[in-house]
């Protein structure tokens, strides 16, 4: 093939034309990896393909439809947007594809959404409403910006200057303050001074994942500048979406690498795991509980550091210079498991689809905003697995997973309890 210049820039879908064209429709994006295939049940990891059945709703169908649009054979339509946006952008397809091939499917899907927005066709009205709220109040819920730090409990005093800044995120700030409180108390218990950003804005995940890259860049610029102003070397995040956004999508949008950000991004579970292993944090309280851990997509298979790349596609589709693909190998999988296993009395039972094979909770990629039924359907699919292994609770490391599971459980009248991992850690250390 003739050399073609490409770069990891989602604002131009042509950068991923090769990846879309070379999809072989093996459906590795849909199925649980075959080595781990459990049998006839719980065998898929793509919620969209499982729910909507038509090939159109698998990554293999989406890329074919998008290519057809680029070729002028398919036009924008409600159906087209339905296909593009009924997807949690959970990364299952990307790691499934990269088990065998070197195709950038996740980036292609992101580029399709960015193109929809650039062409004035996307996102969906529900996403625009969220964007408007972020534009007006700097948070996705439209709550007063002034209330962002209202969660802060009286017993915790953030430092005026510290090496760690806690990026709280919209959900923990407004709708799940228990996560923010637990996180702050854990840091305090560990003797870790931390700051809050004086003016934290939404991380921009709802904007970026729905294709509104300009709006996402606006909030990202603000947050990056605010973080840099603090002088902190580390940003600690308790939300999986925020974690991935800061660590992966911020550098991606600005065409740099994670290592160029100028600060380190860590999730609470990474930090706690390190403290526990060093003996600096004692998980001493017994929690008699049999529970399972849900890998949040953004903390698990989508969390590897971003490395910006540009170069050429050459003969046989080789890239030059070579690059290390993000295959989901180095996601944050083990740390939360080690933490939970270290809590006395707590029995961690694994679900069937775990780590890179996890099934999304259903909330991501703007699905919960635009297709709540689908989001809850997906949560219910996951909860079937929870019931299958007979545990009393599910724990995750993302407020949006917690939220979506909690709502599905409430509707079903299930007895299953839902926790964020910060709550359990706090319960295990509190005096």
């Amino acid at each position: 093939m003739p050399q073609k210049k490409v770069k990891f820039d989602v604002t131009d879908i042509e950068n991923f034309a090769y990846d879309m064209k070379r999809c072989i429709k093996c459906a590795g994006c849909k199925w649980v990896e075959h080595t781990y295939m459990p049998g006839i049940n719980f065998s898929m990891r793509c919620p969209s393909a499982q729910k909507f059945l038509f090939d159109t709703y698998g990554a293999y169908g989406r890329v074919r439809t998008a290519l057809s649009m680029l070729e002028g054979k398919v036009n924008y339509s409600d159906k087209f947007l339905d296909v593009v946006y009924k997807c949690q952008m959970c990364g299952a397809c990307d790691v499934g594809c990269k088990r065998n091939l070197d195709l950038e499917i996740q980036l292609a899907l992101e580029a399709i959404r960015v193109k929809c927005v650039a062409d004035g066709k996307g996102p969906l009205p529900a996403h625009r409403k969220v964007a408007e709220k972020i534009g007006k109040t700097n948070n996705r819920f439209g709550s007063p910006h002034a209330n962002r730090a209202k969660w802060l409990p009286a017993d915790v005093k953030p430092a005026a200057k510290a090496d760690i800044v806690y990026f709280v995120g919209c959900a923990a700030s407004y709708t799940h303050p228990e996560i923010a409180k637990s996180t702050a108390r854990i840091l305090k218990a560990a003797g870790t001074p931390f700051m809050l950003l004086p003016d934290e804005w939404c991380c921009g995940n709802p904007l970026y994942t729905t294709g509104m890259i300009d709006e996402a860049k606006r909030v990202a610029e603000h947050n990056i500048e605010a973080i840099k102003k603090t002088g902190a070397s580390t940003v600690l995040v308790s939300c999986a979406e925020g974690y991935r956004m800061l660590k992966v999508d911020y550098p991606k949008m600005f065409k740099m690498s994670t290592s160029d950000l100028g600060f380190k991004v860590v999730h609470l579970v990474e930090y706690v795991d390190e403290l526990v292993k060093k003996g600096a944090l004692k998980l001493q309280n017994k929690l008699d509980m049999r529970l399972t851990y849900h890998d949040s997509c953004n903390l698990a298979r989508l969390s590897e550091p971003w490395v910006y790349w540009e170069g050429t596609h050459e003969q046989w589709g080789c890239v030059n210079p070579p690059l290390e693909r993000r295959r989901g190998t180095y996601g944050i999988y083990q740390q939360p498991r080690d933490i939970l296993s270290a809590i006395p009395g707590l029995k961690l039972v694994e679900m069937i689809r775990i780590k890179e094979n996890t099934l999304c909770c259903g909330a991501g990629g703007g699905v919960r905003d635009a297709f709540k039924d689908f989001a809850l359907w997906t949560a219910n699919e996951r909860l079937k697995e929870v019931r299958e292994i007979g545990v009393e609770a599910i724990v995750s490391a993302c407020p949006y997973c917690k939220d979506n599971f909690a709502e599905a459980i409430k509707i079903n009248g299930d007895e299953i309890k839902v926790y964020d991992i910060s709550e359990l850690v706090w319960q295990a250390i509190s005096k």
Partner: protein
Amino acid sequence: MAISREAYRVLESIVGPEYISEDPVDRYAYRCGPGGYETDTGFGRFMTKIAGAIIMPKTTEEVQKIVKACNRYKVPYVPWSTGFFGPRSFPYVEDAIIVDLKRMDKLEIDDKHMYAIVEPGVIASQLQAEALKRGLYIVVGGGGSQVSIVANTLGDGWSPLSYKIGMIERRMLGMEWVLPDGEILRTGSLALQDDYFWGEGPGPDLRGICRGHNGVRGCLGITTRLALKLHPFQPEKLEPTGITPETGLALPPKRVKWINFTMPSKEAIVKAMYEMSKAEVGAAATKVPLFWRDIAKAQSKEDFWARWSKANEEIVKRFFVLRVLLVGYTSEEQMEYEERVLMDIVKELGGDARPTKPTDESWIKNADSAGMWLMTGAYMSVIYVWEALDHAKVQGENYAKLKAKYTPPLMPDYRDPGWFQLGEGGHQGYTEFLVYWDPDGPDEDTHKVDRYYIETMKDDIKNRSYPSLCGPQHPLYLSGPAYGPNYHIWMLKIKEELDPNKVCHPPVPLAQDKFVEQADWMKPVKDW
């Protein structure tokens, strides 16, 4: 849009509006290619058409009604399960409907009688996982773990594991089959009672025309359920380990083991395979080509090419690796015994056992067909031959010689003679010849690949080889007379009898004939 409104409404009434679509977004999502098995060939580009609609039945009754409606309204239809068989899965005429069978995903296992009843939406790894839970197993065909077990069985499912338990198509028992005109035929014991346990009589046994190497694949209606014989495996669990992309099944060391041997020559490999068969040891045996090793070790496409570029004709010529699977089906002692026998055989032939990972990455549960696209982005197997082992050995060399004339555009492979394996308890050998090229190269490159494909078929005829994919992939009027001599006439008469309206995947079984006749660039090779 030529599917009449009346026909569409009838079809819609069968499955409900949720399970039928003629929206262009859906129709183009089901387009052939541009990537995938054989889809980058001229055949894929020239022959395939966008479907007029996609319909998804849930039951045999719905399939029957769809087929009857298609006959009534003369709407061509194409059965579709997982759609991985490249252009062979797609319509060749305008306004055909794709009958997507993925909603038919029931799987039942009769543990006591050791068989599974599967519908077309069940894939190979699902069945294998369920079988392994019960101490049973089946061959996961080289088409991949992700393929429909029904389609792969009717087609040509085999793998190195076919040495011990044969080709999967031989394991078909009772079958439920919606004929091209909509009549339901139940074969084997199922014809007489609600029992799938037996494939041959007392009921009708028409498996020969619908399955395997020579059946008129994909144009004789729709198989909606079939039973497959499962085989006893060994009782210990094969534990999945690792994280993507380095995953594998951890093998219980005293019951299941792969061993790689370096051998002094290809003849020694063949001899070892024969001796294994005579001694009835081993569960699988295959000659590994060098590029498989490089694919397995490569961390990326670029890494593969860095490794492969260090190879040369001399290295390939001297690369003799035999890979054997041992299974202690009945006991640890059985495996110990088989291992001792195998070691004796290899030692006598001058081979050496190499350190081999105690895991299974491919064949028992996972068959990594998708990895075949890593190297260039385009892949197909031009030939599959089940013959005597000696024949398999020689035929690979013939193809390599021919292939050299077509390289480039084919990937430089230093005259690699393909791979072969032991099959059917040692009574047969199997060779497969894989080709790779750059699908983003100029059209003329692809045209050469198309011509090479036909030349290999002629080579088979010249060398009296026994091709496995005569039905669906050869020009019927090229291979038929050599095969039968009346093979092609029979095939066409069967088709005419069962599909009088020619609505099931037209123009199969003449699709390849049509391609060769109509594509300009094929004229130089059309000499029959």
